[in-house]
């Protein structure tokens, strides 16, 4: 589990860490819109440079972000093959066996890869610089206006934060049950197919049972402490927009506007 870079909070103290989560989420969306505009080589060059600036501001090592890219290598090869077969426009570049590779195919693959790269990097920056709870609060506030349309923004946020709180507990539990069943002869590596299926069942059923028990206990504990869905509550963590937040959002907005201009020209 310790190797997963994507979605993990890295506790540094940086300019980006201190920004308001709502601002960071909004800025991410503005940036993503820009990424999906057909901005050409120049545009992607600028967007990449902007993102690199973001990485520097967050104090997060570039190698950490690159680590989360590794699984994409396979996808790159896959995309390359498909596109080479399908796209037959542009300048014919070279032939392998009887297959001619056209320039548009390579350009297409390049664009898709750059977009994915930028998308993953920007989300990694967001999750690495924002505590899960702050992220939840940010989502709750941004969903706030939707409360008028009966979207239960607070309950959604509560669900997310409880899920985040229980992930480590459930991982521990999974390991414990896996070991307990291994002691009863479950062999997920070498057993026959039928045995493997039973082995997985012997893991999933106890996990379900214990999760339901936990959910029930937790519901009792929450109710006993005065929680009731839909009841008005105050909030301990108060989010406050500072000047840096406004400047940051304005900067991202400018980048998006720049990209739009680039597309129109």
């Amino acid at each position, binding site marked *: 589990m310790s190797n997963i870079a994507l979605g993990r909070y890295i506790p540094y103290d940086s300019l980006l860490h201190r920004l308001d989560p709502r601002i960071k989420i909004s800025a991410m969306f503005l940036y993503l819109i820009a990424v999906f505009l057909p901005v050409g080589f120049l545009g992607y060059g600028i967007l990449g440079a902007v993102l690199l600036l973001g990485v520097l501001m967050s104090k997060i090592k570039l190698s950490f972000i690159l680590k989360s890219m590794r699984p994409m290598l396979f996808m790159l090869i896959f995309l390359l093959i498909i596109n080479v077969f399908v796209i037959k426009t542009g300048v014919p570049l070279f032939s392998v066996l009887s297959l001619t590779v056209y320039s548009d195919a390579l350009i297409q693959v390049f664009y898709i890869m750059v977009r994915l790269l930028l998308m993953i990097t920007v989300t990694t920056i967001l999750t690495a610089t924002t505590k899960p709870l702050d992220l939840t609060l940010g989502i709750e506030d941004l969903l706030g206006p939707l409360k008028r349309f009966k979207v239960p923004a607070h309950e959604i946020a509560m669900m997310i934060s409880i899920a985040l709180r229980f992930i*480590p507990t459930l991982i521990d539990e999974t390991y414990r049950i896996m070991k307990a069943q291994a002691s009863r002869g479950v062999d997920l590596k070498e057993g026959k197919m039928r045995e493997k299926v039973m082995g997985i069942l012997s893991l999933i059923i106890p996990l379900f049972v214990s999760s339901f028990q936990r959910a029930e206990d937790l519901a*009792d504990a929450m109710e006993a402490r005065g929680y009731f869905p839909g009841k008005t509550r105050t909030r301990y963590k108060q989010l406050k927009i500072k000047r840096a937040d406004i400047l940051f959002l304005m900067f991202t907005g400018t980048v998006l506007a720049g990209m739009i201009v680039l597309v129109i020209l």
Partner: protein
Amino acid sequence: MIVSIKNLNFAYDESNPTIKDLSLGIKKGSYNTIIGHNGSGKSTIAKLLLGLLEKQSGTIEIDGQELTDKTVYLIRDKIGIVFQNPDNQFIGSTVRDDIAFGLENHQVDPKDMDAIIMEFAGQVGMLDFLEHEPTKLSGGQKQRVAIAGVLAMHPDILILDEATSMLDPKGKKEVNDLVRSIYETEKTTIISITHDIEEVSGSDYVFVMSQGQLAMEGKPQDILLRKQELFDLSLDVPFSVKVSDAFKRQGIHFTQELDLEGMVRELWQLNSKQ
């Protein structure tokens, strides 16, 4: 009587009722223990008092107010409870956030929360752990955080539902000492559901549950000497009673059966007379 239960009935399963026509009263400011073998219905009482389970018949009154659908939220404000499993009642992602959870529910002004959190984290000795996540705390520490969260609501009654049964001896002692000091300093009514016979010895009043009914009730010094009855209910007796029993079999009778040091003194006197 701060708690008054009359003719209470409850069943998870109709054919096998969990609580049968139970009546009992608890005095304000007293330290009460409820004992009984597993499955005797003692934990169900706690959930019924908080309205987490719905009774089938009978009445529950807390501080003169009857528990109904309308009063249940008012009554929950008067009662704090700490459950058995320390993991399944930790709601926040840090100690600080967990204590804040109850305050948020009671619509405390966020500006006041920091001071309240500091006060109660301090009272339970968890000030140095405010930013810790639950996975980094011991069972005893988690239960102390749960107590801080409850105390911040200023409850009149504190219920401990086997709150120490999953803890190691160190955690057990931490929590027991803390509850004892809350009882002494805050005059909070304590209802502790427990298997710990030594905790029973130190309480003001003990209720013994069996098959959903009250089998015995009274002061611990009276109840704990009824060895055969306790044994028949699958319950333990205090160590001093076991000692006195062993000596009785040798023909030595003590005048006091609950005071171990007194017993050793009596033996010493016997020895010096010889």
